[in-house]
């Protein structure tokens, strides 16, 4: 079963991750971080990758650009980007791909920006890395990009250093840099988690606007189901290193199939409806080295059956464009 089969996107997907498995450490001490992760991002599509800490969502996003720590190894699976398997691309060719075809923005923009370079020079550098343009044309692009991400007075601000910007403005600079070479896929790893809610609203609006303007596909990694609901068409839910559910955002949020997704949606505090007592999922996420043998969610699951503790359920298509890794949900749907 491939991730693409679960999606209703038209045409071949831009990014297709199939059976991706990543482990940290070597030999007996190796710990599997993610296992058999499959999903796809269509051209121009916005896909949300959601999960709590330890779910493996960041490891998944970092593997796509092969930015994993040296102690991590990709043990299996394919990452097809525009038909090319990024797992087998030689390490030397990756820098060329990064930024030009796939760009990434991170949670803390300060650590991703060079503190000793003006933001304008950094964006200019990003352009020069991948394209041969005259300095004048490059400068024009820098100003256009800064204006495009809503930085007022771009001609003046291009000469400022990262520390002279606020958190929200730095994230705008990061987005401008990511867009410098018109990538086809933008991976955003918790882009607004460090920001205040009114600034988050600004950055999310900017990302929506950019998507409309440029048609860039977005893979948005977040722990916040509200952000995913407002930004994405498709959602991939991860738990303890595996994909437990995937489908269109509208379907999953209305009627989740996997008991973890259901529990997660029910435990979100809400601004509307009854201000009732919060639903709680008992227990904790298992540590990556101490995952149970069967379904990783079984110890916390309210509907588990004997089989759940013995066997790992695979991600199975249950409805058009939807899938879940759950024996109980599977038998209900059948």
């Amino acid at each position, binding site marked *: 079963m491939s991730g693409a089969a679960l999606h209703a996107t038209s045409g071949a997907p831009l990014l297709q991750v199939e059976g991706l498995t990543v482990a940290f450490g070597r030999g007996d001490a190796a710990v599997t971080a993610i296992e058999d992760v499959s999903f796809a991002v269509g051209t121009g599509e916005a896909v949300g990758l959601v999960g709590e800490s330890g779910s493996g969502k960041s490891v998944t996003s970092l593997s796509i650009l092969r930015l994993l720590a040296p102690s991590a190894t990709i043990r299996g699976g394919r990452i097809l980007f525009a038909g090319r398997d990024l797992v087998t691309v030689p390490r030397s060719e990756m820098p060329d791909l990064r930024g030009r075809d796939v760009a990434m923005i991170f949670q803390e923009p300060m650590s991703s920006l060079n503190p000793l370079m003006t933001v304008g020079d950094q964006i200019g550098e990003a352009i020069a890395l991948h394209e041969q343009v005259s300095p004048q044309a490059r400068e024009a692009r820098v100003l256009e990009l800064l204006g495009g991400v809503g930085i007022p007075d771009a001609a003046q601000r291009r000469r400022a250093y990262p520390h002279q910007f*606020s958190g929200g403005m730095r994230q705008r600079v990061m987005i401008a840099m990511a867009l410098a070479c018109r990538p086809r896929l933008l991976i955003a790893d918790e882009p607004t988690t460090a920001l205040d809610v009114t600034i988050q*609203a600004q950055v*999310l609006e900017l990302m929506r606007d950019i998507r409309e303007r440029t048609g860039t596909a977005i893979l948005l990694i977040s722990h916040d189901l*509200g952000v995913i609901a*407002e930004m994405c068409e498709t959602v991939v839910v991860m738990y303890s290193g595996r994909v437990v559910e995937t489908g269109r955002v*509208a379907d999953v*949020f209305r009627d989740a199939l996997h008991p973890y997704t259901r529990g997660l949606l029910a435990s979100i505090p809400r*601004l509307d409806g009854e*201000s009732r007592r919060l639903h*709680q999922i008992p227990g904790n996420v298992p540590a990556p080295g101490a995952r149970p043998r069967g379904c990783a969610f079984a110890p916390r699951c309210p509907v588990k059956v004997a089989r759940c503790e013995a066997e790992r359920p695979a991600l199975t298509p249950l409805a058009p464009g939807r899938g879940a890794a759950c024996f109980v949900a599977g038998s209900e749907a059948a």
Partner: protein
Amino acid sequence: MSPSAPFLLRAEGIGKVFGGSRGLPFVAASARVRAVDGVSFAMQPGETLAVVGESGCGKSTLARLLLRLIEPSEGRVHFDGQDLEALSQEALRQFRRHAQMVFQDPFGSLSPRRTVFQTLAEPLQTFGLAQPGKALREQVADLMRQVGLPASVMDRYPRQFSGGQRQRIGIARAIATGPRLIVADEPVSALDVSIQAQIVNLLQDLQERNGFSCLFIAHDLAVVRHIADRVMVMYLGRVVEIGPRRAVYEAPHHPYTQALLSAVPRPDPGAARRRIVLGGDVPSPSRIPPGCAFHTRCPLARDICRQERPALREMPGGQQAACHFAGPNPIPV
């Protein structure tokens, strides 16, 4: 302390200015930062008051002022009818028995070299509430059971626990002395969603059973809605709106409250709603704009807002708001 005071806690025009030294030989001058500015409110026994606002709004500083962990620059705090400023060193220590705190960081707020037993026994011992010998272990075991932890793990060190479990230990420490007020400074913002719900429910259960008042500090408006009786919204050290939860959430009277509520992403795909996106950044607390501090970002701002600082006024909805143009949902959508 007298048991019949009408308010448990009352703050009168409390404020804090950090820095602002002119500089001495070998000592650098520092900028004046007005973190909290003239905050007044009162809390009833048993009530939960939530303080919400974005980073730099002064909510954490306010918490520390109320517990006198830092000295206020102006204003007074009364606890159970007593002026905290008038208390001696030892009387202030006795006050801490009745007013405890829960911290944001479940990893940093527990001493790494002390076992759970040592951490939980400490408040009991320092106030002479500990029973001698083995009975103390039973007291600690009871505290752990109250927060849903098995007593069998009391001799372990904090690093052997997950974030949610550590936050339970932090709560157990806070309720150990049977306080009448608990100040919880962003107690769930470092936790995952599913764990967050556990901790919020635990706090509510304990409050129901023990009857303490809770000052709940948060930046997450959705969490606050599930726990608070009243809500206080802060912006740049000032209270912009305060009132019963229902009034504030259903019909915010200050444009900032309205924008804040509107900015929260909601897990309802496709729900049609017009979002209010405020422009610009929160100004630095070292350069608070004159007049209404919110005027630089407010879509309703006019000349008067730039000149005259609005006072908190009673609103028909039951809350108070500090805005010249306050009214139900003041920003037209």
